């Protein structure tokens, strides 16, 4: 699956994990995982931190603002929007 053909996120989008997707911390491997019906995705860097904010309540601006307040000066906005766009293209968040 690719992002190609995925319509743009609606205005006021409040991202949430797709029902099939489970985000969990793996104590054994000390890694954050997205678990799907037939696969496991090992999350790197700040991916899990961003996805934990995707609770269906926060909208995109709120998510970006929270991350910016935690990481002042980091180029958060573009990176986060691009990352969540890719995750949406995969069908892992909606």
């Amino acid at each position, binding site marked *: 699956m690719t992002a190609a053909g995925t319509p743009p996120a609606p205005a006021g989008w409040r991202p949430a994990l797709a029902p099939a997707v489970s985000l969990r911390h793996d104590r*054994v491997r000390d890694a954050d995982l997205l*678990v799907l019906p037939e696969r496991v995705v090992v999350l790197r860097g700040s991916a899990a931190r961003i996805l934990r904010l995707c609770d269906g309540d926060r909208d995109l601006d709120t998510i970006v603002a929270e991350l910016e307040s935690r990481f002042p000066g980091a180029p958060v906005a573009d990176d986060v929007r691009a990352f969540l766009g890719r995750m949406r293209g995969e069908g892992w968040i909606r």
Partner: protein
Amino acid sequence: MTAAPRPWALLAELTHGCPLHCPYCSNPLELVRRSRELSTAEWAEVMRQAGEFGVVHTHLSGGEPLLRGDLAEIVTAAESAGIYTQLVTSGVGLDDARLAALAAAGLRSVQLSVQHADPAAADRIAGHRAFAAKERAAALVRAAGLPLGLNVVLHRDNLDALDALIQRGVDWGADRIELANTQFYGWALRNRDALLPTRDQLGRARETVQRWRDRLGGATDLVWVVPDYFDGVAKPCMGGWGAVSLTVAPDGTALPCPAAASLPDLDPPNVRDHSLEWIWDHSGAFNRYRGEGWMREPCRTCSRRAEDFGGCRCQAYALTGDAARTDPACALSPDHGVIRALTDTGHPAAAATPAPTGGYAYRKPGGG
């Protein structure tokens, strides 16, 4: 010996009982009797240990796992252990109440088997009138909001119906359709003459899959499990022996893959005698073909050995009598002629026209 990487997945064969009799069943020829099955408490303990040492995914399979009246309790045990659960079912026996109980217990996903797009042909292949129940089961799973996968085992008798099969899957709202070309072990090996497709059939099927992928654009995930008899390339079986996943059979026998019960001298351990962690790290069975130390030529120095792990041990045993030989599916295997004799155009089996009446040795207890 350094500890092996932890397994990601557990295939839990909860029972070998099944109302269907599919001639390619992945269960061994010698099916485990119901009286020897692990108890609820024993399965709960397997799940606890599995979660504890790194398993994140379990396929609750069979046979037909819905025959276990305690299935919801086993789901709860897996979920409590932090393991994502997928039910692998024929759909027979799945009603609204049953599905609601499983979902309440934490079931995450359902994979439904489909034999053919045509109900009568599907029931003939399954050896049971099951198609209507599958259609109902698919609708229930969608209504419950759970992800729905279909698994279609492909062979001579249904490859020409692939277009209609995919259409069924799309109509039923499947998120994922696994098009699994038959792997020839156990029951499928016994029925190989009836199941083996022709190269022409496979060529047309590949075109059909590509056409649907273009049309669907990823809305439904189509997974093509390669027909390794025809490609000249060994499959990376199980992602390597004792590397990614383990199977626990209904009686607690632990295996590196579901087909490994066919290996005569494996002496597989049992969860009733040992912890899963001991089984994974220290049992002879799980270490037998782990890594590359067991390999001979041409695998030992092959540039692909870290990609395909020498192919499948069970297939090497089934076709050569020696599980440590290179998988004959590989064109580099000295035994590849065994496969070519079956698949080359001009060979009687390869040239045979699809046999619509099957003529199967149906899977049933005592059939081994």
